[in-house]
């Protein structure tokens, strides 16, 4: 890669990161600034709002519930969506449009309307099977479908699934091995991104849990926020930080990718 191009690329990257970084960090900074305001205009800055969060016992149960839901939803997505997409790609290409539409449908129906349709199903499930908040995982899996599908689709599109599968099959692998040990590692970026999206969706989901009278993280935050103005904003920023740290940790779970040549050669 010529030095000129490398330099232009670096300048481009620096400019993009600076501009985008400012755009995204300034509003969060403004929220943080507000959360440190004292009671009156002239009162000194204080971290009281943040300390109040630490003193709320109900928050722990809600956090654990949301984490459990995140794990269940990601697992469900991996088990249900990844094999189906690979199989459809390989053997049932005429179904891919159908799957694409089905995976877009959850986004087109506003959550409050979806709850109206889900309520009878959840009513039956709660009375006959199980009442716990973890049953929300069933509907959360549906909610993450649009995002996970798109991430997995672009990942699948970037590799030559057909050749990989044929090669593995010709070496005697069964379909499980093909999917798990041949194709999936090649789309590890996409799978990781799909998991990140799933976790983020679950941690940020509010409407459905709220309307079904479950208390997940966001509902607990909304209740906590009613205490006081600065606390409501402090707890919102805290939940963003919490989700961020969680996702960073999760991102280390992905395999490091050996590259034939670094992408910046592009």
């Amino acid at each position: 890669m010529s030095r000129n191009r490398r330099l232009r690329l670096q300048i481009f990257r620096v400019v993009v990161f600076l501009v985008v970084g400012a755009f995204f960090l300034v509003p969060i900074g403004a929220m943080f600034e507000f959360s440190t305001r004292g009671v009156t205009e002239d009162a000194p800055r204080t971290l009281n709002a943040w300390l109040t969060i630490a003193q709320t016992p109900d928050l722990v149960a809600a956090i654990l519930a949301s984490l459990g839901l995140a794990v269940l939803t990601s697992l469900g997505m991996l088990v249900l969506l990844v094999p189906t997409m690979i199989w459809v790609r390989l053997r049932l290409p005429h179904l891919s449009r159908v799957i694409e539409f089905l995976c877009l449908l959850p986004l087109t129906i506003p959550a409050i309307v979806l709850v109206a349709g889900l309520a009878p199903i959840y009513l039956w499930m709660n009375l006959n099977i199980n009442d716990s908040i973890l049953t929300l995982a069933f509907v959360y899996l549906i909610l993450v479908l649009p995002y996970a599908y798109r991430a997995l689709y672009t990942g699948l599109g970037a590799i030559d699934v057909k050749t990989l599968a044929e090669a593995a099959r010709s070496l005697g692998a069964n379909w499980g091995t093909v999917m798990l040990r041949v194709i999936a590692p090649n789309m590890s970026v996409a799978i990781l991104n799909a998991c990140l999206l799933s976790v983020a969706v679950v941690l940020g989901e509010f409407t459905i849990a709220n309307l079904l009278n479950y208390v997940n993280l966001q509902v607990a935050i909304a209740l906590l926020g009613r205490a006081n103005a600065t606390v409501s904003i402090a707890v919102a920023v805290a939940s963003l930080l919490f989700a961020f740290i969680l996702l960073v940790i999760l991102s280390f779970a992905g395999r490091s990718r050996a590259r034939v040549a670094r992408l910046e050669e592009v």
Partner: protein
Amino acid sequence: MPQWIAATPFFLYVGIFLLLPTAIVVGGAFIDSNGLSLSNFSTMNQRFVINAFINSVVLSLATAIIGAVFGALLAYAVATGNPNGVFRRLVSSACGVLAQFGGVTLAFAFIATLGSAGLITLWLKQHGMNIYANGVWLYQLRGIVLVYTYFQIPLMVLVFLPALDGIRPQWREATESLGGGTWHYWRYVAGPLLAPAFLGSTLLLFANAFSAYATIAALVNQGSIVASLLIANTLTSEVGLANPGIASAFALVMVVIVAVIMVLYTVLQRRTAKWLQ
């Protein structure tokens, strides 16, 4: 064993937890107090209802395109860096969090930044610039576009990044060995290969903005200017204007609109595949 058997778990699951609720909702659109009827659609010809749907489509298209373009640029900036680096992990995680950041808190973040008493507004005023001289645009559709891009751009990065990661350096080398420059590379090689992913991601952004409710509800709480507000109002009005049947009718129209957009997207995908050849 027929090949489609392997897809049945997926369809069964989606059937129970997505199609069944959708059918329940859509079915409700055709039922009113007298049984099966189309009366719930009678409100569709009212001016404010049509405006709400038009606003929804325009807003979603605008934020989808802006989010897609800037998101793609950001994704490219990320993809050209160290694939295992800390920076990439940080940006990916930040995008994961921000893509789902919305509702009252996002609205407040923008109010605290660009509202009438926002930090940036006041700072600019101190330096002689009044950005609201012609009215406060933050609570009009243009302002909402800005607020929506806050979660559209991260979403684009997350769904488009895998496509950029799939770019091989060999493509560039091949283009150059044939005498092509940057323009040729993007126009004839990388562009056509990335177009399906780009269009698909834009479609996702469109649907995301189309059904978004909580953020705009916090910023423009008066008059239902977009379809999602209209539906929420019709479902939870506590002054007696709630009507689940009409809400279901609106929801059905939303699904139809997205289905139409999907058809257009499919057509566009085929066309671009042809043009870019």
